[in-house]
């Protein structure tokens, strides 16, 4: 199996040298995102996001199941993300998931599920018996750095793009209409959380939207999850060098500005 290809010493030192002068290796500004392209596929709920070289595909599907016994009036949101060797040589789907894979998957699960972006009460058909289970599958097609941001945009755009079959409840009976009979309805989404990730290189050098080389060279990374109502949904920092409260505040301010741009792009893409 091919292990992850580490960058050479020259690449690392050139990157740090350029960053000290405020220049990034691909010519971007330190707080610039790469070109973000969102394409909502032919099927409802299929979205592919390209963030520079990084490509992620999100797919939403639903089916009718029994609810959890302790939550009879809520639908279920299931989340699945796998990093395979298609996106980078270091990932191996056959063995145990590596620490990075687990971190990315857990981060996305928090963003979608625990931030309660999807209204699960609206997914109930018959309390205690039938509810919708919404399943989100994320496939990473190419790892060009910053998988989390690209995947969070893909997941939330797919949820907003998705249409589920319409249901009429008549007492104890529920009729699920075929999509050809009645137009399918969108999911009820409370808010649109997106992740904004920063990379740190020590001594107050910080960039937004790390490319693959920057991600392999960074000493710390920090993700802020915000929605369009300017609410912070989650902060995530796993290991790495310590950050001061001032730095965290600055990151949040920058993220607030960026989240508006991201949300606009998502809106535009879904309309088409």
């Amino acid at each position, binding site marked *: 199996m091919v292990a992850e290809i580490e960058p050479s010493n*020259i690449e690392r030192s050139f990157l740090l040298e350029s960053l000290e002068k405020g220049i990034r290796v691909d*010519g971007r500004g330190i707080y610039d995102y790469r070109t973000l392209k969102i394409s909502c596929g032919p099927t409802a709920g299929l979205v592919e996001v390209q963030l520079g070289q990084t490509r992620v595909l999100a797919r939403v599907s639903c089916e009718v199941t029994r609810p959890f016994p302790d939550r009879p009036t809520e639908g279920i949101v299931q989340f699945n993300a796998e990093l395979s060797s298609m996106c980078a040589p270091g990932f191996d789907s056959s063995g145990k998931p590596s620490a990075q894979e687990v971190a990315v998957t857990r981060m996305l699960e928090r963003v979608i599920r625990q931030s309660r972006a999807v209204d699960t009460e609206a997914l109930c058909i018959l309390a205690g018996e039938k509810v919708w289970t919404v399943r989100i599958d994320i496939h990473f097609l190419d790892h060009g750095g910053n998988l989390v941001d690209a995947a969070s945009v893909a997941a939330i755009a797919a949820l907003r793009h998705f249409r589920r079959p319409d249901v009429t409840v008549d007492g104890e009976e529920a009729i699920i209409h075929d999509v050809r009979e009645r137009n399918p309805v969108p999911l009820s989404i409370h808010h649109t959380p997106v992740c904004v990730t920063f990379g740190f290189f020590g001594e107050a050098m910080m960039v937004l939207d790390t490319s693959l080389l920057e991600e392999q060279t960074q000493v710390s990374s920090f993700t802020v999850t915000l929605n369009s109502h300017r609410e912070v949904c989650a902060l995530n920092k796993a290991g790495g060098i310590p950050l001061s409260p001032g730095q965290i505040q600055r990151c949040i301010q920058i993220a607030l500005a960026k989240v508006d741009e991201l949300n606009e792009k998502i809106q535009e893409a879904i309309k088409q």
Partner: protein
Amino acid sequence: MANVKVVLPGDIVDTQSDGEAVLRLGPGLVQHNDDIQATTGGVLHASSDTNQWWVGSNRRRYVAAEGEPVVGVVVGRHGEGYRVDIGSAHDALLPLLAFEGATKRNKPNLAIGAAVYARVAVANSMMDPEIECVNAHTGKSEGFGELHAGFVFRCSLGLARRLLSASSPVLAALGAELAYEAAVGVNGRVWVKAGSPEKTILVVNAIRNSEHLDSRQCKQMVKELLDRQSL
């Protein structure tokens, strides 16, 4: 445009040979019983004087072939040499004595993660490839050896080959305005060093952009990059 023949994998190629002259098959062609079959998709080329046929195609995965210059990264050291990653399926071996002026007493000391420019000495499908930083006949390094400072980036194999040809438009256009050094590896890796980080990044971006541009567009693109930089 002359007759350009495009082949797909599996196509039988008719070389119109009379069965007497020796036919040499290059990359992308393989002999199957009495037929010659293409194994990759691309444009069929033939050189009439050496009677050699091959399929030219662009890809990103490198397969080591003897005599080619490559840029590699040292990933380990063991016994008699270094293990170097050159992007092929297996890491290459770089013997400790394959450097200019190396003797048993005076061996080079490369760090893990160092970048080297080397020539492929041995490459076949049954062994790990071997590379060397010296010309085995003359004993001179001829430009090979460890690469210091600068930056290394990846590109497609087709672009790397075009850069190595004598008349690469993008390198000529850049050379007219900037002073820079570059080492191009046929394995799709290029090392660039210019006076300052900004200039190096400009050269890197210019080479990356030139993948699908012809020579006039290359000159235009380089001019635009330089103008934007000096503003």
